């Protein structure tokens, strides 16, 4: 099974969700743990649509994260629709992390795009993610179980 976590840019929510899936983070992780993630706040708008391998989980399933802009819901429908029409069975699960988006993460993500405020933006984004970590953890557990 291929797991793909996606959000707007692939920089914050989905990279953290992938880390939760891989047990690199847990629901009690701190802001500094989040900031210490290898891929946190790394992907840029030009990377949208490109899955990044975060690692393999305990069942050796590959876990990816990526940005999809505002096309998260469209991608889910489109991928299953194309697979149906082509008669292709791909063992994958795509998980939209945007329901876990908070204002702080959105604001931090916006600010971090400007070099002068990058550290502040990263910190705010990490704080926003931290506040919703329990919800994200539930999302990940649900994706793993279903």
């Amino acid at each position, binding site marked *: 099974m291929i797991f793909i976590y996606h959000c707007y840019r692939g920089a914050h929510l989905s990279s953290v969700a992938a880390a939760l899936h891989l047990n690199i983070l847990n629901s009690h992780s701190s802001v500094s743990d989040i900031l210490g993630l290898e891929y946190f706040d790394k992907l840029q708008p030009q990377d949208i649509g490109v*899955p990044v391998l975060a690692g393999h989980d305990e069942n050796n399933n*590959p876990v990816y994260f990526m940005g999809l802009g505002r096309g998260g819901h469209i991608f889910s429908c489109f991928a299953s629709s194309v697979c149906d029409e082509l008669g292709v069975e791909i063992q994958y699960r795509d998980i939209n992390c945007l329901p876990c988006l908070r204002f702080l993460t959105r604001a931090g993500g916006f600010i971090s795009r400007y070099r002068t405020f990058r550290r502040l933006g990263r910190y705010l984004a990490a704080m926003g993610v931290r506040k919703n970590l329990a919800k994200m953890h539930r999302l990940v557990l649900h994706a793993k179980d279903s």
Partner: protein
Amino acid sequence: MAAAAVHVGLLPKTQKPSKQVLLSLPYFDTQKSDDHGILQFVGNCGEDLVFSVGMETEADHVIKALKNLFALANEDMGQVKFIKTMPVVNRWMKMGGVASRVFGLKGIGRPLVTYGLSLAFADIVQLVDEVSSGSEREI
């Protein structure tokens, strides 16, 4: 939708379609936002199957992601062509689409869309001709 209809011959290339003809097309202005991304079968062109699909402004990202998903799974997409029709969409069609779909004002949106379509019809036919003749307009 109109481009797919021209492609399969539901709309003749030589004549601008009337409002009534456009509204009688399958799926015309019936999509809701939640339906975007779902393939809609429009018809056959020879042995080819022609579909229409709504992508809002995210076609490039979504198709790139889909191609990457197939590559990750080592699956072949075969002879699939994705044709972007946004370049022939004019402001009337955009305004009509927003009025109809976002605000639910079909009484305002549909006339705007059909008017915009009649203005853009030559461009739509040209796009379909280029695609049919194998010119690269793929995403």
